[in-house]
């Protein structure tokens, strides 16, 4: 993962309904950096993440990828992006293997069945391959959704509360994967309400909740 990337916002300002969530948010994130987004319930974390991914239009201001607005280079940006929201984006009627393979194909890199099996091993779901996703438990579903991280080629990961519903083991494995990604020059933006080791001593920490968000670089 040689090329270095850069995600910036300039004077980003978002509102939902008639409520202004934050304004004048400026930060920049480079390859190898983790951004930890904090804030109480309803402070606009999800809104910000969706805006960064290009799913929402900001009220004003811009999101820049390598110096250019993301709307103007949608396909290139999406090629480098992996977004995981509150929803798992899994088909309840297909099993884990089918889900992962088809997901890869839409994303532009089809996987063979072998690779998918290995992936299932990584996320600790061996023995559950043949079950339709809808019959898995809450945490197991989340694991399958997160399996995308294991085989991702994207540089930028945007993760909205990735640790929710995971048990202690899974939380630790996930942290290891994220660390690994950062070490290889990836970028990660995440938000969580749980205390995890990963976020202590983060490079860039954005706290929402006040009118103008607080950005602190460690």
């Amino acid at each position, binding site marked *: 993962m040689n090329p270095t990337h850069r995600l910036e916002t300039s004077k980003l300002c978002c509102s939902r309904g008639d409520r202004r969530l934050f304004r004048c948010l400026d930060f920049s994130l480079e390859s190898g950096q983790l951004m930890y987004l904090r804030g109480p319930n309803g402070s606009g974390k999800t809104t910000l993440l969706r805006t960064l*991914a*290009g*799913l*929402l*239009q900001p009220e004003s201001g811009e999101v820049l990828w390598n110096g250019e607005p993301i709307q103007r280079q949608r*396909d*290139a940006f*999406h*090629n480098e*992006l992996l*977004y995981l*929201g*509150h*929803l*798992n*984006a*899994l*088909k*309840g*009627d*297909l099993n884990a293997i*089918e889900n992962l393979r*088809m*997901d890869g*194909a*839409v*994303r*532009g890199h*089809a996987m063979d069945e072998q690779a998918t099996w290995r992936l299932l091993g990584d996320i600790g779901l061996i023995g559950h391959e043949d079950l*339709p996703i809808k019959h898995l438990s809450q945490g197991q579903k989340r694991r399958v959704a997160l399996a995308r991280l294991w085989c991702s080629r994207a540089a930028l990961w945007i993760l909205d509360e990735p640790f929710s519903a995971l048990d202690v083991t899974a939380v630790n494995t996930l942290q290891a994967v994220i660390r690994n990604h950062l070490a290889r020059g990836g970028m990660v933006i995440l938000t969580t309400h749980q205390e995890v080791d990963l976020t202590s001593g983060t490079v860039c920490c954005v706290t929402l909740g006040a009118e103008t968000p607080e950005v602190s670089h460690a």
Partner: protein
Amino acid sequence: MLEALFWIVRRDVTIALRRRTDVFTTLIFFLIVVSLFPLGIGPELDTLRLIAPGVVWVGALLASMLALEQLFLADHRDGTLEQMLLAPQPLPVLVISKVIAHWLITGLPLVIMAPVLGLQYDLSAEALTVMVGSLLLGTPTLSLLGAIGAALTLGLRSGGVLVALLVLPLYIPVLIFGAGAVEATTSGLGGGAHLSMLGAILLAALLGTPLATAAALRVASE
């Protein structure tokens, strides 16, 4: 790009086949609607032959419209749609693949079933052939047009019925030419002109609607 298209079609068809009922239910809905009319109207064959093209076409239209709601709903609800919007592929292509899958699941069975129902109404062999032809050209258009409505109403509570309201005015030309083709054949005028009109509409829809649907999808998942 084509690979993504292929995989989406494959995924949707797999899901539909997995719960085999899905394919059958649209079909059986069609069957039931068409069979209900003789019950409501009475069994005289003359009347029935007269109304047959209209009833079969209206039945096909309602059946394919009913199935429309599901087109993007499941994807929207479980977050797959979000991922499609973020995929590094042109969205209209993904839309087309969704529509193709939808037609294979809901449209094609109707086309295959229609002649059997036409027999119930005592239609001639020629009229049945034209009916199949008109459905073959018409139902993909219905799916393409319907996709716009499905995308616009995505996630709105009154989804199913609202789709009907938005989409039916768009369906009317297809209905008129489709039923017209069969009628023209039974009355000895030949349905060629109607059929080529249907073909033209299909082409136009194929070119125009995926863009509108893609735009609507982006709006819907804001």
